[in-house]
């Protein structure tokens, strides 16, 4: 296979996604088109993107072309290289799962009032937008594709627009996406001002003075950070992601946030290319704050999808910690270590796409069969939905960074990069990195606590409400979508050496140095720096865990049990220390589970908790947890805008002559500026 074929596959993916959008126009007449044609086409688009990305990574070259579209003097440039290939792969993996999962899920909408055309059409355009962002090779096409992605996802967030809260979430999303888009546009503008044109090749050679490079970096970091949901620009994310249909939530959290990471890497690592260490520190600090705040906020939530959205903030924080470490090492001349941190960040991108996609699909499966998002109403779902329960468990273990699953490998690599901080010359930098790794360690442990809460409350124990008690297995398509991602979680955890050899093409192309020593001891051993420094054998850990566990199980249950005088396992009521048989309402709820953590880290949130006695003698517990950043950042801005608007409103006199006067004055003013 050549790069031409890979590019053709990528083009095919875009065409398929567009076709899926176009076919959805029929869904108004024939509702079944969405289920039978449009959504499977989306899956095929994912498959094509997956193949194209894989080919680009394996071949390792790059190919450019222009399309006869765009502006007369600026045709659309397209380029497929290793970096684009990696993100195509990532988009493809999750879109494939959505293609498998979607048909059964959208069936539930066929009898509702909601417009199927809007769902299918904007899903297709959304995927098209993401694919085009990654393939774009000039700032113009990039921005067009970026806006396509943002706008189509706005309509998906606003899909259930009959609820006021959803409309508000969608508006906030639209607003922040556009402020972010403006920042990115300005960043390209700064780059272009010192270059000769808008294509990435021309931007890449632009010579920026340090101050303007700093401006471009800041604009790009804020713009892409806003889309990636970094704290404090995260407010839209936990509001917007949960309200979209679940397979779209999987795409938004799993993939769209990664497209923002792609943009950041493209602009900062590829186009700007040279950076002072201060940028690394900035990215590290924002990444650490996002990681820690994100997981604590996730711990506080009882709404499953909202919790998952906050956990995306946390994971994006971890990715940016990796990127920050990479910037830090690269700016101080440690290219190999920079590549290590870079690979760790990319690996975590892929892992997060896989396990967050899986968890959102799982949340969707629960929503599909119980119409419930509130953890405190769930319980006992593992016995009612065994496959979803199993796959969700894999997702939980992966996101909690537990060996031998994939989340552990990327976190391990990030730690390995951080542990090389002793090589840095500056004592200040040497001490920043350990503090960041402490934050990362705390984050990892809190994630485990958060997801024990999720799994323990939702899938274990007894059902807390009637509709959850009636939950049944989902259709096979939904299970297959989750199963594909769950298998990937295990494979990416068990065979990290192969995955890293595949990813290695990206740092070789973007940074000029890779991790040649990662697989020198064969596929069994992962040695990112050197065998002396650290080694991990994913396959052997899997083999030993499975081997010992199964041997112990078999030994105790079969060898040892032989000749046992009594029945070997007897079922009975729960013992519970001899108290009355426990009722479902006596179980720990999600809110109760989080109480110790809430008590320790309560200062970071606005917590409004009260217990009131009702007239009928029962007591009522009310708990409201708010995001402090609202009060710190968003409300002051909203107030400022409002008070400015109140002043400006005086211009609105209602008289046409006055308006014409203002227009004339503006025109004269602009002419004066130009001349």
């Amino acid at each position: 296979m050549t790069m031409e074929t890979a590019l053709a596959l990528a083009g095919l993916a875009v065409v398929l996604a567009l076709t899926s959008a176009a076919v959805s126009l029929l869904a108004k007449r024939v509702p079944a088109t969405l289920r039978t044609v449009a959504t499977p086409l989306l899956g095929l688009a994912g498959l094509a993107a997956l193949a194209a990305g894989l080919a680009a990574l394996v071949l390792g070259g790059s190919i450019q072309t222009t399309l006869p579209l765009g502006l007369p003097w600026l045709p659309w440039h397209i380029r497929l290289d290793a970096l684009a290939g990696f993100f195509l792969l990532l988009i493809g993996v999750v879109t494939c799962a959505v293609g498998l999962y979607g048909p059964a899920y959208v069936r539930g909408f066929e009898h509702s009032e909601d417009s199927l055309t809007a769902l299918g059409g904007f899903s297709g355009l959304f995927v098209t937008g993401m694919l085009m962002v990654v393939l774009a090779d000039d700032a113009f096409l990039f921005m067009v594709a970026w806006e396509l992605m943002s706008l189509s996802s706005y309509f998906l967030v606003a899909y259930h627009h009959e609820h006021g809260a959803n409309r508000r979430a969608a508006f906030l999303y639209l607003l922040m996406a556009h402020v972010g888009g403006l920042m990115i546009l300005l960043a390209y503008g700064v780059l272009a001002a010192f270059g000769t044109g808008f294509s990435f090749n021309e931007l890449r050679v632009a010579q920026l003075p340090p101050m303007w490079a700093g401006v471009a970096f800041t604009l790009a970091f804020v713009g892409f950070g806003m889309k990636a949901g970094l704290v404090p620009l995260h407010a839209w994310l936990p509001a917007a992601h949960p309200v979209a249909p679940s397979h779209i939530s999987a795409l938004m959290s799993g993939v769209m946030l990664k497209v923002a990471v792609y943009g950041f890497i493209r602009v900062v690592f590829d186009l700007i290319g040279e950076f002072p260490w201060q940028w690394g520190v900035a990215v590290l600090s924002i990444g650490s704050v996002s990681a820690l705040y994100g997981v604590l906020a996730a711990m506080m939530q009882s709404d499953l999808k909202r919790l998952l959205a906050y956990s995306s903030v946390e994971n994006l924080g971890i990715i940016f910690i990796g990127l920050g470490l990479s910037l830090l090492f690269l700016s101080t001349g440690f290219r190999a270590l920079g590549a290590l941190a870079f690979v760790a960040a990319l690996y975590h991108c892929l892992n997060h796409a896989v396990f967050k996609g899986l968890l959102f699909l799982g949340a969707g499966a629960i929503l599909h069969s119980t119409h419930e998002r509130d953890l405190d109403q769930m319980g006992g779902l593992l016995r009612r939905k065994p496959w979803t329960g199993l796959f969700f468990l894999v997702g939980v273990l992966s996101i909690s960074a537990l060996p031998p699953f994939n989340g552990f490998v990327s976190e391990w690599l990030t730690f390995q990069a951080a542990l090389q901080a002793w090589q840095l010359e500056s004592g200040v930098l040497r001490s920043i990195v350990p503090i960041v790794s402490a934050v990362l360690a705390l984050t990892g442990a809190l994630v485990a606590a958060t997801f024990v809460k999720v799994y323990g409350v939702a899938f274990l124990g007894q059902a807390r409400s009637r509709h959850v008690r009636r939950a049944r297995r989902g259709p096979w398509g939904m299970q297959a979508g989750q199963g594909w991602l769950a298998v990937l979680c295990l494979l990416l955890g068990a065979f990290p050496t192969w995955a890293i050899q595949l990813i290695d093409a990206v740092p070789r192309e973007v940074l000029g140095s890779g991790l040649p020593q990662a697989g020198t001891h064969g596929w069994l051993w992962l040695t990112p720096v050197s065998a002396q420094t650290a080694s991990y054998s994913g396959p052997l850990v899997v083999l030993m865990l499975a081997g010992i566990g199964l041997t112990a199980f078999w030994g105790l249950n079969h060898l040892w049990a032989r000749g046992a005088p009594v029945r070997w396992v007897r079922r009975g009521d729960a013992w519970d220390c001899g108290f009355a048989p426990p009722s479902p309402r006596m179980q720990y709820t999600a809110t109760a589970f989080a109480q110790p953590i809430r008590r320790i880290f309560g200062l970071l949130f606005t917590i409004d908790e009260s217990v009131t006695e009702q007239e009928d003698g029962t007591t009522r517990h009310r708990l409201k947890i708010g995001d402090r950043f609202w009060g710190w950042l968003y409300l002051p801005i909203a107030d400022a805008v409002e008070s400015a608007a109140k002043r400006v409103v005086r211009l609105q006199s209602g008289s046409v002559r006055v308006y014409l006067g203002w227009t004339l004055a503006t025109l004269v003013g602009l002419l004066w500026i130009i001349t």
Partner: protein
Amino acid sequence: MDHYLTLPGWGIAFVQSFLYIALAPLLVGWVRKVKARLQNRRGAPLLQAYRDLYKLLAKEVRVAHTASPLFRAAPYIVFTATWMAAATVPLLVVDLPTAAIADIIVLVGLLALARVFLALAGMDVGTAFGGMGASREMMIGALAEPAMLMAVFTLTMTAHSTNLSSVIDQHLADGFMLRPSYLFALGGLVLVAIAETGRIPVDNPTTHLELTMIHEAMLLEYSGRHLAMMEWAAQIKLLLYGTLIANVFLPWGIGRGVSAAALGLGLAAVLAKLAVLGVALAVGETVLAKMRIFRAPAFLNLALLLSLLGLLSHVILEVGA
């Protein structure tokens, strides 16, 4: 790395990992015995812990109607993960293949895996005590794990390797050098070990009062061989932390290379060190009272602070000095 992966190396790693499961009840018995003597009791025989395990293994298992398959799988997963974590810590000799398979970060990860399944099993039956224990355990774990990682990072940064064998080699090669970072890390790790193994003052392994339980609350629904596996895993964890402290901070006596003399000396040395640590633990448990549960975060913050101070004093004072 290749010099680890020899046939005798694998053989000794195999023997050593079985020594962990064989010795774990002995350490618990020893601590209980010393504690009893300190409290003017005669105490149970040294080998009582083995008898308890045998008794539990032979008993019928009783499982609640409401339990899911996870409840029955969890004891095996907890046991396996804890045992594998222990197998990566050099007990008798250094430079074994197990250290190359899994470094110190993997060790922490495997312990976290065991903790997650323990907590999930606690929540499975759907009783109030199980959820309470799981919530508390995850709170303690969330604060203890970063402290543990920071403490071991201090060591790994000194040795420029996360491989425990290399860390011990480095420490032996340095000779007896009093590094401030090591003292901080030792302090942090001791506090973490107390919290993670559920000892006084964080948790009381012998408590019969459900409302104060952490570890035991998650095991309330277990019986028979399931309970035996869980108990055994807890004992292995105690031995693991003891060995980690004994062999990493005071590595003298540990065998280097594969010979009968090295193995014998290693065994004698580690037994002596563990016996001393066991006495220290028993004394500590006798003179201290259990804390309120919400004092535990302060205790663990101290551990995190000590470990972080160790790491910072290493990167600021010792690197380049």
